[in-house]
Every structure is written in structure tokens, then in C-alpha cells.
């Protein structure tokens, strides 16, 4: 069964890669054929007419992901932060033990149900 699944995965990945490369080669061909090299204003970051320095244009990836998590689960995040962030080592040890035990119970239940 595992070999069957592995063959299916490999087949899917072969199709994905070959089609991806065909489309990517088409892009490279089209771009190289035109031979146009944009310059000047076209290369600046678009900011509705405002002057926008290049170094300000990016944001750290960590903030991008973490901001999204905080936005979606804002109330849960604040609740957990206030309750769990006590600064006492024993609290941390307790929470970690609960988490590991929960994981073991979930795995055990999944195994026996199967």
C-alpha cells in the first residue's frame, strides 16, 4: 500500500513539475524574445505618487505570519498570553506536561479507533 501511494505521489509530482517547467520556459521565451528592458520610473515601487524608499518596502516574514495569527485568534492569543505568561518556571513546566500528555492521549485514541 505504501509503495502504491508513493508511486501515486511521484506521478503527481512529475506532472506538476513538467507542466510547471513548460509554463516557466514559455515565460522565459516570451520575455527573452521581446528584449525590452524597462528602466527609470518603471522600476520604482508603486506608492500612489508618493516617494517610497526601497528599504521600507519589505516587512519581516516573521511579522507577516505572526500578525496574521494574532489577527485571526486575537482574543485567544490575549487570553493565553495573560494566563500563561506568569514568568514562573514551574507554571511553564506544568503547561508543557499538559500539552505532551494531551498529545499522547490524542495519538492513543486515534490508534485505538483505527
Amino acid at each position: 500500500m505504501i509503495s502504491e501511494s508513493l508511486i501515486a505521489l511521484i506521478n503527481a509530482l512529475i506532472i506538476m513539475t513538467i507542466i510547471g517547467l513548460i509554463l516557466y520556459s514559455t515565460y522565459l521565451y516570451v520575455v527573452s524574445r521581446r528584449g525590452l528592458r524597462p528602466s527609470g520610473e518603471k522600476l520604482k515601487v508603486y506608492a500612489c505618487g508618493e516617494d517610497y524608499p526601497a528599504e521600507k518596502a519589505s516587512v519581516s516574514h516573521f511579522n507577516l505570519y505572526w500578525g496574521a495569527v494574532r489577527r485571526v485568534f486575537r482574543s485567544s492569543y490575549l487570553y493565553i498570553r495573560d494566563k500563561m505568561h506568569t514568568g514562573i518556571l514551574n507554571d511553564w513546566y506544568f503547561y508543557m506536561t499538559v500539552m505532551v500528555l494531551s498529545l499522547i492521549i490524542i495519538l492513543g485514541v486515534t490508534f485505538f479507533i483505527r
Partner: protein
Amino acid sequence: MNEEIIYFVITMLVFPGLLFTLIASFLTQWYYRKLYAHMQNRVGPRFIGPFGLLQPIADFLKLLFKEDITTIVARRREQALFLSLGAGACIALLAMLPFSPYPIKASYDVIIALYLTYWPTIALVLVGMMAPNPFTIIGTSRFLSLLLTYEPLWAVTLLVPVVLVARTYATSPIYSIYTSSLLAWTLWRSPIGFLALGLGLITSILVLQCKLMLKPFDIPEAETEIVAGMFTEYSGPKLAYIILLHDIEIVVYGLLIVYLYLGGPAPFDLLSIPGVLLFILKYAIVVLCLIMIKAATARFRIEQAMIVILKYAIPMGVASILIASLAPIILW
């Protein structure tokens, strides 16, 4: 062996591979543009080709041969590479459906399907992040926020028919997209199947609206508010690829819903005229549902969209997967 390779190449390049997907995505774009225009008292595409059928191809080619502008802070080649791989993943997903001459099938292949459906989404996130700009960053951040709420539900909508079939029939391969596509529609007849599939179908349409960034969930690109959001810096060939990937996603996810929930050409055979007509009709109805919601609604704010998903879609999705999982226990 040689015959297998020939079938594999045909599956990859012709049907349901690259050629079929390109034609289907252009036709789908024409169809939804026409529908959307009529719903807004416009005529839609009409000048190129009969009834404007060739307009999407003309638009694609026009963009493809335009100047390729990449800002000094953006990555030039990787954007196109990830968009191409996203399209490739969608096409690989089509090869898992029963209409493929060389269907990719195995037990638990639903995990492969889930992996492939995440590729276009991740490609779009990366594309947004690779052209840094105040608007693309806002758009990408919004898309990531939405993604965290709707992607688990998308997995649930794929799992509902698969789990239901695996729990009801003793078939091989189990937990497979292939088997589920052939058998799931028969479960509409039982009350439990009707409930699970009905809730799953409604959830899948709602989640698809979100996944495809159609109104009222077009918050990441929010025209007139944050210029073009994630795609503000894109023009020319890369914009052509972004639009193409969007249309390919509509085709692939639409066909996935048609097969998993509505049985594809069932009760007819796909190789018969009624089968083909019914298959096209079911697909057209799924796209019609998406476009009707798009035309009838206005854009949500980001927190409104999340509340809608958390309040309505998640309970429906959880209920459908629970019913599907407990189906044998309830039936016995």
C-alpha cells in the same frame, strides 16, 4: 509498459492535462465574464470570435507579450516559477479524477490531493511577498489571515465524501479521490449521506468563494481600496499567469466538487452524449453559484469575513465531517 507511458504523457499534456485545462480555463473565463456582465446589465465579451468566445485568449496573449516590469526590490524569475508550479499542481490534481486516461490513484491519496490544492495558494502568497510594496504587503497579510481560517475547512470539504465512502463501502483503494468520485453521489439517497454531503456542498461553495478571492471575500486584492492588493506590482506576462492560475483554479476546484459531491457524469457514463452534457451542466451550475454570490454581494471587511467563516462555515464543515465519520455507527 510503453502503453502506460503513452497514456501518462497524454494525461499530462492533452487530456485532462495542459491542453484541456487551458481550453477549459479560457472557456470558463468567457462563461463567468458573460454571466457576471449580464447580471450587471452589461453585454460582456462579444467582439472577438463568435459570441466573444476568443476574448479571454486575446486578453491572455496581449498581456503575455507586454513589457515585463519588475521593481528593483522584487524578484524577477521566482514569481513566474511559482505561478507555473501552482498551475502544474492544479493540473496534476485533475489527473486524480476518474475521467483521466491514466488516473493517479492509491489508498489515502486524499493527502496527495490536499497537498496539491495548497500549492496554488502558497504560490500566490509567495508571489505577493516577492514584490514588496505597501499595498502588496497589506494584501498578502490579509490573504494569510483569511487562509488560516478557510484552508482547514477546505480540507474538511474534500474529506467529507472521501470519509463517507470509505466508512460506507468496502472498496479499494480506500480514502481515495478516485473511488469517492465514483461512489459518493450514491449516498445522497440515504438521509445521513444527504445531510453530510448537503452540508459539505454548501461549505465547499462558501470556502471556494474565499479560496478564489471572489466577492465578498476579495479582501486581499480589494480594488479601489488598496489598488490591486497582492497584485499591485504585477503587469504583462506575470499578470497573464496570475489570471491564468486563477481560471485554472476555478476549473480544477469546480470539477473536484462536481465529481466528489455531484458524481460527475453519473448516472450516465462519461463516454456517452448524455453523460458529457450532464457533466458540463453540473460544472456550469457550480460556476453559476460562485458568480451569483459574487454579483449579489459587496466586499466584506477582513473581520466580517472571518466572522462569517467562523460562525457559519466552520460549524457546517465540522457537522458534515462528524456525520460522515459517524455514518456507520448511526446507520447500524
